[in-house]
């Protein structure tokens, strides 16, 4: 029963929701719309009752693991606990029922939230010009690079054709560069896992629009040459963009502005703990220097006396979202930051402590390619002869969500472990114990894993070869 689709649980004529009675004259569609534009066949949607719907989606949920059920050290995704206060905030009908096009005078509370959050994000990054509009991290990247492009357009500098991307970068970075029309050129890493400064120096020239850096990078390593890197770019008239996916390692300890970053995106859902919702929605707010401020998406929120209002930045790239951004995550991030204040630094401190603790305990058994201080995540490799995939599937049988695997690409059999600050030492110790035990488990046994999950390993090839993406 659990496996069957909602449509299979229905029968023609069943209804899961009752609507109000019509209190005006009934209109016949055939009387108001030309017949050929009207639907000829009823869509094949479920016809089910509320009890069936609730039971179906409750049981489906029970086939998911999540932070609420298990440790979820998915590297680069910052799967921290989501405070339930944020959910109460987001459910407030005074916000949940607000239409995005209501006149500004009717939405002063919402605008104040946005304005305050803009200020918080400016302070945390040191970059004064914020936009909350991008709807996800990847869109924050795109927005940033679009702003860079527009800057050069406005400056009449047509020769900027390339965006540099370290080989450790998230896949979204080169994809973003391409979408904006830049060639993406890869830069290698040095022996610490950081950007190879010499290679960078050689690559940067007058065609360079920007370097897209992640700091700490996806090897979990702080870019110790960050100042030199930014100087190299700035000397060439190019920008340093920072992918903020890893901001959880920086709060109150490092501000991108002081490191020479010109523009960055936040993943509000990661760093400021909006529930990830199974993949979204998120918010990819950006923060930039005053130089790039005029290019921000339209609109941003400004304050005039006691009034808040929308404003179009002077040379805006235009809008990247239908409305003002994902207000739900915006409200949650605002609430989260207010519950922490300057103590946000503790978040970073404990996240980094946890990652280094895992590093210290796994080292010796697992290979640590960059075994120095890591920041909020650590990349490890299984013992010789073992596959990251097998260890990951083995972890499932221990009740854990596996780390990110096969990323960063620069590390073979990489397992990127991000414990986050909300996990206790006991949880980490248990996880470490499982990892050590798996290192001793035979490959045969590992390859059979998982055996205790709702399914065993899937035939992914078949899914792609015989595409069946609907009922």
């Amino acid at each position, binding site marked *: 029963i659990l496996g069957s689709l909602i449509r299979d649980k229905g029968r023609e004529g069943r209804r899961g929701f009752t609507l109000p009675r019509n209190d005006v004259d009934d209109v016949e569609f055939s009387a108001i719309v030309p017949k050929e534009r009207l639907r000829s066949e009823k869509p094949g949607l479920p016809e089910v009752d509320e009890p069936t719907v609730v039971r179906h989606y409750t049981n489906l949920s029970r086939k998911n693991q999540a932070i609420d059920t298990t440790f979820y050290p998915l590297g680069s995704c910052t799967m921290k606990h989501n405070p339930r206060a944020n959910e109460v905030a987001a459910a407030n009908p005074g916000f949940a029922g607000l239409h995005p096009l209501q006149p500004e005078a009717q939405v002063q509370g919402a605008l104040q939230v946005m304005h305050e959050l803009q200020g918080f994000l400016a302070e945390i990054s040191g970059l004064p010009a914020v936009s909350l509009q991008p709807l996800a991290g990847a869109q924050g*990247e795109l927005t940033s690079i679009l702003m860079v492009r527009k800057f050069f357009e406005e400056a009449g500098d047509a020769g900027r054709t390339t965006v540099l991307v370290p080989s450790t970068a998230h896949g*979204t970075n080169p994809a973003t560069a391409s979408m904006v029309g830049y060639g993406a050129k890869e830069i290698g890493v040095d022996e610490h896992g950081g950007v190879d400064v010499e290679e960078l120096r050689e690559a940067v020239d007058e065609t360079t629009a920007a370097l897209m850096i992640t700091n700490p990078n996806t090897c979990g390593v702080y870019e110790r040459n960050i100042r030199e890197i930014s100087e190299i770019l700035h000397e060439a008239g190019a920008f340093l963009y920072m992918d903020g996916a890893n901001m959880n390692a920086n709060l109150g300890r490092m501000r991108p502005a002081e490191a020479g970053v010109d523009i960055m995106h936040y993943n509000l859902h990661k760093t400021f703990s909006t529930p990830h919702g199974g993949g979204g*929605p998120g918010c990819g707010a950006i923060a930039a220097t005053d130089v790039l401020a005029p290019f921000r998406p339209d609109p941003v929120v400004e304050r005039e006396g006691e009034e808040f209002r929308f404003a179009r930045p002077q040379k805006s790239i235009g809008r990247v979202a239908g*409305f003002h951004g994902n207000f739900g995550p915006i409200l949650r991030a605002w609430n989260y930051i207010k519950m922490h*204040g300057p103590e946000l630094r503790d978040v970073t401190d404990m996240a980094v402590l946890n990652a280094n603790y895992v590093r210290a305990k796994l080292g010796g058994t697992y290979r640590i390619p960059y075994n120095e201080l890591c920041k909020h995540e650590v990349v490890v490799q299984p013992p010789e002869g073992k596959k990251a995939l097998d260890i990951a599937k083995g972890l499932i049988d221990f009740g854990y969500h596996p780390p990110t695997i096969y990323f960063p690409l620069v590390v073979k059999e990489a397992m990127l472990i991000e414990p986050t600050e909300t996990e206790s030492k006991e949880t980490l110790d248990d996880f470490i114990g499982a990892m050590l035990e798996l290192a001793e488990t035979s490959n045969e046994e590992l390859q059979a894993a998982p055996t205790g999950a709702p399914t065993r390993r899937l035939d992914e090839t078949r899914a792609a070869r015989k595409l069946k993406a609907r009922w």
Partner: protein
Amino acid sequence: MARFTPHTEDDVREMLGAIGLDSVDDLFSDVPTKLEKDLDLPPALSEYEALRDVETLARKNSSEMPMFLGAGAYDRIVPSAIGAMLSRGEYLTAYTPYQPEISQGGLQVIFEFQSMISELTGLEVANASVYDGANAVVEAALMTARLTKRDPKVATSKALNPRYREVMETYGVEVVDLNCDNGTTDFSDVPDDVSGVFVQSPSFFGTVEDIGAAAEAAHAVGALCVAVCDPVSLAVLEAPGNLGVDVAVGEAQPLGMNLSFGGPYAGYMATREKYVRQLPGRIAGETVDADGKLAYVLTLRGREQDIRRARANSNICTNQALTALAATVYTALLGPEGLREVAHLSASKAHYLAVRLAEAGLPLRYPDAPFLWEFVVEMEDVAKANEALLEAGIVGGYDLGDGGMLVAVTEKRTRSEMDAFVEAVREVTNA
């Protein structure tokens, strides 16, 4: 200590010992640009104080009033069961289902969402959703460029939501204007170098467009036709897949999502199977596990940024899984008949209001164009009318800025609310 971190001082000491460090500060000795001051943020609040602030600001908004605003986001009934499902921690606090063995719940939801979108649009394959309707539109525009191997250039009219057009322009899509003087678009004059022809129906002005004509015009010049449709309208309007369109996209917000000041919503995208490799975003597909048991998995990953990097068909990383879940639960609860009834109630009420406004001397701008639940009414001073409505406790329509008010009427509106609307507007108009 921060508020959601478990460590005690003893924990910290023990862990630092295991790492071989003396202090937490030492964890940052590799950071050359260490921040030496405290962040200048307001002092930390307890949960109770923070939520009191939320309530205080919520009260500064004018919410929970009868609303006649639409223009891309609609004040529809959100069944209570949706919130109950979305608050399940297993959905709420999971991430992208990279590990399918422990993500079958979320994956099946995506599969069901895709199936429902396919059914509504009459197209073979849908993705797991993108950020919002506007982004679905621009992604469709880029898709037409890839598929036609032309530059991204689309022909459409002012009857396309201007915000969708703006986002296309931001993304570098060229937009060519078609005529729509009488409220519906004239597709007889499409330039032959466009990659796509876009038709929104119901249009931004609420009118029901001739999608078939758009598709014919597109194909005549070797372009693709993209239909932009309110999914609720698809309960009664012909499925775009049956009218020759190649891609159907739209804003899924009317399917059970709160207005939430503009987001989170979800954009849907559906296309013909032959175009699936140019469809951006996540797709869940059916497969079997090692025991031959039916299961779901993210598939066709080769299109995506984490695999293909600079050559990906989009930089999109995730879908709007939680709001897509809302749409899925909504559609399951309503079913085809319920959706139809939503459409029917909305249309009946909208036509009632349009007639009452006309009687009050406020005529429709496009009297000859068919519409469902949204229409443009001519008005001397829309801003003034909206002020009068606010005074009457009503959120008025969308000010088109040219003496037109775009009025949306959903199943929530009652006859007495509409009568009050007419009353308030009439007074201002007569004044």
